[in-house]
C-alpha cells in the first residue's frame, strides 16, 4: 500500500491512472514530512493507523 502526504495526492492519482488503477486508494497524511522530528513522525504514524488498517481490510 502507499502512504503519501496530501501535497502529492494529485501526482499519486495521475500515476495510478498510468498503471490502469485510477481508483487506487492511498493513505494520506499532512504535508510536510521531511522536516519533522522523531516525536512528530511517531504522532503522524499513530494518526495514520486507522486509514492503514481500513485500506488493508484488517478486521477489528
Amino acid at each position, binding site marked *: 500500500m502507499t502512504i503519501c502526504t496530501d501535497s*502529492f495526492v*494529485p*501526482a499519486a492519482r*495521475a*500515476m495510478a491512472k*498510468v*498503471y490502469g488503477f485510477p481508483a487506487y486508494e492511498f493513505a494520506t497524511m499532512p504535508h510536510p514530512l521531511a522536516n519533522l522530528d*522523531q516525536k512528530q513522525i511517531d504522532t503522524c504514524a499513530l494518526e495514520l493507523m486507522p486509514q492503514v488498517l481500513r485500506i488493508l481490510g484488517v478486521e477489528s
Partner: protein
Amino acid sequence: MTLVDAPEVDSAAIRAAMEYYARQDWTDGLPVVPVTESYLAAFLAQTSRKPDDVVLAMPHLNRDCTVRLAAINAAMAGCLPEYFPVVLAAWDALVGEGYVTRGIWQSTTGTAPLLIVNGPVRDRIGINSGGNVFGSGFRPNATIGRAIRLTAINVFGLHPHLLDQATQGTPAKYSACIAENEEASPWPPLHVEHGFDPADSTVTAMVIRSCVHIEARHTQRPEQLGLDIAGTIARTGAMVHETTSATVVLGPEHARVFAEGGWSKDVVRQFLYEHAVTSRADLAAVGKDAISKNTRWRLPAGHPDALPPDDSFDPVPALNSPAAVQIVVAGASNAGVSAVIETLGARGNPPSTAKVRDP
C-alpha cells in the same frame, strides 16, 4: 517590416488550429505550431532512423517516445526540419546521461535538461553561442530545448501539478539550449575534450536546476576569479546531497583571464575542487552538517537518519573530485560575466555527449 512576401492565409483558421492544440493541453503554455503529415514528413526526412524507432523509453510510465513523436513535438516547438538531427542527438545524450529515465523530470527538485551544442552544426543552423546565450532571440536555441519539454509533456504526460511535481521548477524548463563559443575559447571545446573530432557536431545533455551568474569585471588575477566561482559552487543552498557538481560557463573574457595566467581547463578544475569548500561550522549553522545514511542527502547532526559525524576533515569539499566540474565557454566577449550551472546526476563521470548524425 514588410508584408510584401507574406503568404496569404486565413488567419482565423490558423488561430483555430492553435487554440485546438491549447485546449488539448499539448503545450508548455505558449502557442505551438500546428503539424500536418506533410510538415512531419520534412522532419522525418532529416534522419535515417525509422519513425517507430524508440528514442527514449520510460518504463515506469509505460510510455515510449518514438522518432515520429519526437518529430511531431519538434515541429510543434517551432523547430525547422534541419534542426531535427540536433533534437535526436539531444535525446541520445539524455538517454546516455541516464537520470531522465529514473524519474528526475517528475521530482519536486524541478530540474530541466541543459543541451550544449558543439561543432559545425552551430553555424549551419545558427545556434547562438555569443551574447545573450542563455536568453531569447535565437530560434534554434529557443526551439530545440522546447522540443524536449513539449515531448516530456505530450508523450510522457509530465504535466505540471500532475506527473510533474516540481515545487518551483526553473525558467530553463521552457528551453535550455546553448552552443559553445569555440572560436572565443582559449581551450579545446567540450566535445574534443571528451574524445570527439573538432569536425564532429555533438550535443551534451545535463540535468540542471540553477544558473547562478558571477560578476567579476575588476580582475586579471586567475586566483581571484577562481575563488569567486568556487564560492558560488559551494553555496550551502546548493548542498542538497553530500557533494554537488557544476558546469562553469565562462564568458570569453573570464576564460582569457585564466588562459593568460597559464591555466588550462584542468588547472581551473583542480583549483575549484580545492577551494569550493564550506566549514563544518557554516554547514552546522544551516543544519546540513550530517549525511543521511539512506539517501546521502544533507541533514542536521542528531537527526535519526544521520550517519555518525566524520570530523576528520574541515572544511568540507563541495565537489567529490576535479572531474565534477565541466568547463564551457559561451557568451559575448564584452564583460567579466560567467555562470555556474548547478547540475544533478553523476558526479565526476564524463558528461553524456552524442553525435549529431546526418540523414
